[in-house]
């Protein structure tokens, strides 16, 4: 009881006399938990009581093949390892024969570290080879080179032709799609609904396609990168950021909406460019005329989608040019980078960002479509919107058949 009587005075004393000390105290309460964590970790390491769980089993080992370069010196492989103990690469087999190799950097590899193996192997153009790495524990990790072709080196004289290819699969179709703009303006309200629904449809396809591609790629990446989780988190973060930025001044409409669509499509085309460049590099896909034409056809719908929100505006020619570049030009950069034999997680990252951006425009175009219908006192669920949706997805899916080898 006595204490209860005294306590208010004690409180007021500390409140009046020691404001800085309270800051110190609150700071202290940031430090204490961290200190506790350090102590716990130190104790765990020092006492080593986890060895009670040691069953004598060999260490867990994981080797991921991230890059593969074939050139006049042979085969160069970039590995990334994961494991409970450092991993020692003991030997390398190529096509079931032990082959000499030089590891750079040499020595045992710690968890998540990477190294190049340079193998002076006389690979045969156009044929299949198999690389097998044998670790100290006798565990083997295998990587197939499906079709051996020399990895293109980044050469200045190739940047031009590659850019040309990027223009052809990225910018040209978007511009062709945009040429439908005058026709779309003449279609009236139902026509606008159709065009917007078509845009949503094509974006839904691109979203699913980006996610699928990203998932496929991350499976090949090192397990420690937690591939699928990384893709989902990156896509969700991108979506949230773009959504928040886009809604700063209310829901985007008109040119703003068109810009977001172009951005999302641009990111997707960047990923597509990486794939085309990668196909050049790996020689896994025969990049023929038909394939390039397929990409072009596939991307025409994108141009229609970008200009759909602009039907009520009268944008200048330079606006169209800007939008076309935003949506199409990333394909050029994608092809440039994709040809350099990059690690798969980088393309997965690009595609995941693209998926998030596309999801944002799906939401915004959908919202625009519904608002537009409501403004005219109608429901958005009309035959023309449903038709647009189905046509959008259908055209994208069908034309995609041309480019999936």
């Amino acid at each position, binding site marked *: 009881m006595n204490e209860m009587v005294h306590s208010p005075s004690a409180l007021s004393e500390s409140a009046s006399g020691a404001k800085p000390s309270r800051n110190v105290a609150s700071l202290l309460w940031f430090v204490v938990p961290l200190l506790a964590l350090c102590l716990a970790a130190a104790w765990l390491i020092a006492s080593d009581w986890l060895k009670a769980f040691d069953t004598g089993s060999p260490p867990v080992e994981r080797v991921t093949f991230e890059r593969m370069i074939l050139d006049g010196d042979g085969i160069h492989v970039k590995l990334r390892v994961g494991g409970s103990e450092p991993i020692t690469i003991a*030997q390398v087999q190529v096509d079931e*024969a*032990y082959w*000499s190799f030089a590891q750079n950097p040499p020595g045992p590899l710690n968890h998540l570290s990477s190294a190049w193996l340079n193998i002076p192997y*006389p*690979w045969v153009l156009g044929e299949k080879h198999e690389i097998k790495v044998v670790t100290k524990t006798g565990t083997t990790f295998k990587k197939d080179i499906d079709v051996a*072709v020399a990895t293109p080196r980044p050469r200045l004289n190739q940047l031009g032709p590659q850019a040309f290819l990027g223009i052809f699969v990225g910018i040209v179709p978007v511009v062709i799609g945009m040429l439908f703009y005058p026709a779309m303006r003449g279609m009236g309200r139902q026509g606008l609904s159709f065009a917007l629904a078509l845009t949503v449809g094509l974006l839904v396809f691109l979203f699913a396609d980006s996610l699928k591609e990203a998932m496929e790629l991350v499976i090949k990446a090192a397990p420690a990168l937690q591939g699928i989780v990384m893709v989902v988190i990156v896509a969700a973060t991108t979506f949230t950021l773009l959504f928040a930025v886009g809604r700063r001044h209310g829901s985007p409409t008109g040119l703003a909406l068109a810009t977001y669509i172009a951005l999302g499509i641009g990111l997707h085309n960047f990923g597509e460019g990486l794939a085309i460049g990668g196909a050049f590099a790996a020689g896994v896909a*025969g990049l*023929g005329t038909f394939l390039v034409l397929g990409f072009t056809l596939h991307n025409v719908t994108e141009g229609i989608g970008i200009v759909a929100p602009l039907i009520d505006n009268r944008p200048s020619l330079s606006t169209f040019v800007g939008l076309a570049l935003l949506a199409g030009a990333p394909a050029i950069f994608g092809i440039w980078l994709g040809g350099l034999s990059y690690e798969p997680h980088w393309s997965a990252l690009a595609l995941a960002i693209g998926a998030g951006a596309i999801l944002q425009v799906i939401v915004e175009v959908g919202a625009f479509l519904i608002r537009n219908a409501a403004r005219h006192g109608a429901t958005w669920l009309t035959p023309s919107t449903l038709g647009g949706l189905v046509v959008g997805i259908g055209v994208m899916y069908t034309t995609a058949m041309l480019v999936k080898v």
Partner: protein
Amino acid sequence: MRNWILERLTRRGILSSGIVAAGSAVVGALTSQRQATAQDDGAHHGGGTTHASRSAHGNMITVGDVDNAKNGFDPTAMLTDWERGSVSRLSDGRALRTFQVLAQDKEIEVAPGIIFPAWTYNGRVPGPTLRATEGERLRIVFQNGGSHPHTMHFHGIHSARMDGIPGSGEVLPGGEFVYEFDALPFGCHLYHCHALPLKRHIHKGMYGAFIIDPDPARHPEHAAVAQSRLLGTAENKEWQEFVMVMNGFDTNFDNENETYAINTIAHHFAKHPISVDRNRPVRIYLVNILEFDLINSLHLHANFFDYYDHGTTLTPTLRTIDTVMQCQAQRGILEFSYRNHEPGLYMFHAHQSEFAELGWMGMFDVREVTT
């Protein structure tokens, strides 16, 4: 546009897939493609190998060298390391030869840097080369210091009680069994663990050569040949005898071998050629105990040999051959000479190219020995 793409395709040498109709035309135009060439830069991998023996294998070789001291055995020393046991006399005057063998779990390096959790006889793979003479009484005191039940199953003539199979001479960890039988028939034989599962016990390393030299007194018609086969005689000393056990290791336990060798260490004899005096004949006791693969073989370069299948005859079963095939547990004796050859490095290897390229490959360093 179209022309440009086609031109690019041609210049870049992109392969046609089924989708490209014009693909076949593209493939022909690949001459500008730089072909990779093997660079002979093995020097920095080092490991006490002669330059000449290295150059014969180019880059198709394991990197580095095995720590034989740590393993506790050296494949080269094993070639001539005969385990003779100890000899006493039975009441009937016959020799009683006693061998001591201990089963042990042991991690061994089967190729440079590759550690294999082996089961061994006397801490080595292959186990000791037990060598006796025809007609002797043999006593093998077998102790199991390993973690699993083991046996010693001899390829020879003995009673069912001495067969070394589950239920008959199987030894639990910590236990002991004494196998006893007569050394018959003379020849080049082997022993191996016959505990179950058989495959696992064999490929983990439980096998060794078992040689019974013919007793010349029992073979008057071929006494000279028998005399030359009998270890310790002056006639036998004229020969350069080597025991080679063809084996392999499944290091990742997928029922396929990652390494192949004679006497365990992949590429050992490619890096450390076997010295041979060209003026003395060579006799090889060849045993195949390779698991998983159906057959194994030995091919001798630049020379031919006579072959005694199972070594149980004193006249060759195959004459003037340069390749011999053996199934698992098949064995035989090879006899040949480099007397008419110039000195140099003479290769020998399995003529299953895959086995050769995965370690079963060696060289004879044939020299003029002036003494």
